[in-house]
C-alpha cells in the first residue's frame, strides 16, 4: 500500500488519518446512541412517574399544589419543587462550553493553532465551572432523596448531569493538553471535531432535563389509587 505522502499516517496501523477519523466518527455515533438510550431511560422514568402520580407521591410533601394532595404518608417536611431557572442556567453554561469548543475546532481547521488552544482552554474552564454549579444545585435542592418520586427523578437527572460534566472535564483536559502539544493540528484534528459533536449531544441531554423540570412539574393525575385501599382518591 503506497503511503499518501500528503496525509499523515496513523502510527500503530499505518493507515491514513482520514480512515482513522472516519472510524472514530462512526464510533462516536454509536457512543451517542448508547448515551441517548441511557438519557432516555431517565427521561422516561421522570415523565412516566409524573404521569402516574402513584399514591399521590409524585410531588414533594410540602409542595404548593393546585389540588388536594392526599398522601398515605403524612407530610413530614417542607420539601418543595425545585426552582426552575438553575436548570436553564446550567444548560447555558454547557452551551457556552460547546461554543468554545466549536470555536477551537473551527480555528484549527483554518490552521490557527492559538485559536484552538483558546477555544479548548475556555471550554475546559467553563465545563469545570458548570460542574461546580451543578454540584451546588444538587446540594441546595429544597428536597432530599426520600421526598417522593419527583425528588428521586430530579436527583438522578442531575447525577447524570454531573457524570456528563465529569466525563467532559476529563475529555477536555485531554483535548486541551493534546492541543497544547501540537497533537491536534491542521492536518490531524478529527478529535477536536468529534469532541464538538459530542458536546452538542450533551447540550441536548441537558436540554431534555431542563424541559422536564420546567414543563412537567405538577402531575396531571390528581386522582391516583391510594395504596392499600380499593377506591380512587375521589
Amino acid at each position, binding site marked *: 500500500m503506497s503511503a499518501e505522502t500528503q496525509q499523515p499516517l496513523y502510527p500503530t496501523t499505518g493507515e491514513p488519518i482520514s480512515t482513522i477519523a472516519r472510524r472514530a466518527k462512526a464510533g462516536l455515533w454509536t457512543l451517542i446512541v448508547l448515551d441517548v438510550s441511557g438519557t432516555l431511560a431517565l427521561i422516561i422514568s421522570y415523565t412516566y412517574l409524573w404521569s402516574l402520580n*402513584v*399514591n399521590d407521591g409524585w410531588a414533594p410533601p410540602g409542595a404548593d399544589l393546585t389540588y388536594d394532595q392526599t398522601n398515605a404518608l403524612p407530610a413530614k417536611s417542607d420539601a418543595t419543587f425545585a426552582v426552575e431557572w438553575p436548570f436553564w442556567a446550567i444548560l447555558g453554561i454547557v452551551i457556552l462550553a460547546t461554543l468554545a469548543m466549536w470555536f477551537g475546532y473551527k480555528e484549527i481547521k483554518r490552521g490557527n493553532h492559538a485559536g484552538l488552544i483558546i477555544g479548548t482552554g475556555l471550554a475546559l474552564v467553563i465545563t469545570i465551572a458548570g460542574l461546580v454549579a451543578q454540584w451546588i444545585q444538587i446540594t441546595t435542592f429544597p428536597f432530599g432523596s426520600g421526598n417522593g418520586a419527583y425528588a428521586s427523578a430530579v436527583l438522578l437527572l442531575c447525577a447524570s448531569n454531573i457524570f456528563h460534566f465529569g466525563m467532559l472535564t476529563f475529555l477536555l483536559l485531554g483535548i486541551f493538553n493534546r492541543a497544547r502539544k501540537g497533537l491536534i493540528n491542521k492536518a490531524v484534528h478529527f478529535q477536536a471535531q468529534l469532541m464538538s459533536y459530542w458536546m452538542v449531544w450533551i447540550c441536548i441531554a441537558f436540554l431534555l432535563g431542563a424541559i422536564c423540570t420546567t414543563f412537567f412539574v405538577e402531575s396531571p393525575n390528581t386522582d391516583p*389509587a391510594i*395504596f*392499600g385501599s*380499593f*377506591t*380512587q382518591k*375521589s
Partner: protein
Amino acid sequence: MSTTDVRPTGQPDEPEAPTNRPPSMHRVKMWIRRPYARWIMVLTVLIGFLLMPLAWLLLAAMNQTGAPASEVMKDIEQTVFVFTMVSIPITAFVFAVLVYSLLGWKHVSGDTPPEDESPAIRSNTIGVVLWTVVSSVLAFFLVVWGLAELAQITANSYGTIPADEQPEDKQALIVNVTGQQWVWTFEYPQYDGLTTETLYLAKDRPVYFNVTSKDVIHNFWAVELGVKIDANPGAITQTGVTPNKTGTFNVRCAELCGMHHAYMETAIQVLEPKAFNSWAREMGGGKTS
C-alpha cells in the same frame, strides 16, 4: 390446448412475444413430476396429520382440573386449538424438508470436503414469494383472530372499568382481591365487607375482580376460569369473568413474590346462586347492595 396470444406484429410468423416460456401451469406440472417435490408434499401432509392430535392433547392437559369453567376459558381453549391447527402447515413443511434432506437427497461422509454436487440455487422467487405470502396470511389471520378475541374477552371481563366506576348492577358480584405475602384475601363489598380466604362465586353470575397488593407484585390467577391479572402495590387492576360451572377450582399466584410464593394458593368454590346466597348469609354478610 392451442397456442394463444397471437400478438399483432409486423411479421406474422414471428415467435410469440415477449418470451417463449411455456404457460405457468406447465412449469408447475413439471416441478411436481420431480420425485422430491412429491415426497416432500406427502411428508408434509403426513407429518401434519401426526401433529394434529397435539391440539387435543394441549386441551386435555389444560382441562385436567375441571376447566373450562367460564366462557373466557372456553375462548382461550378455542384459540389454542385454532392456533395449533394454523401453525401445523408450515411446521410440517419445515419438518418434512428436514427429514427428506437426510433420507431423500444424497449425503456423504468422510474427512475431506466432498466435490461440489449440489445445484447452485441462489434464489427462487416463487418459493420466497409463496413463503412470504403464506406466512403473512397466516400471521394476519392469527392477529385478526387475536384482536377480535381480545376485544370480546375484554368486554366479557369488564377489564377496563375502574373500581369506583363499576355499575350498580344487581347481577354483578364485586370481589376485592388483596394479595400479600403469602395469602389471598377476598372482600365482598356488597355483602357488608365480608372477608374470606377462599373465593366463593356464584354460577352464571358475572364477577368483577378489583385486585391490589399490600406489599410486592403478586399475580391473581384463577386457573380454570382463565383469568389472570397482576396484583400491584399502589394500583388497582381489574379483570372479570362469569363462571358457568360449579365446582372447586384453583387460585394460584403466578408472580414470584418471595419465599413462600409456591404456597400462595387458595381454592375457588363456584356454587349455585341459591347456595352462594345462603353461604353469604351464614358468613354474616347481609347483602348491602
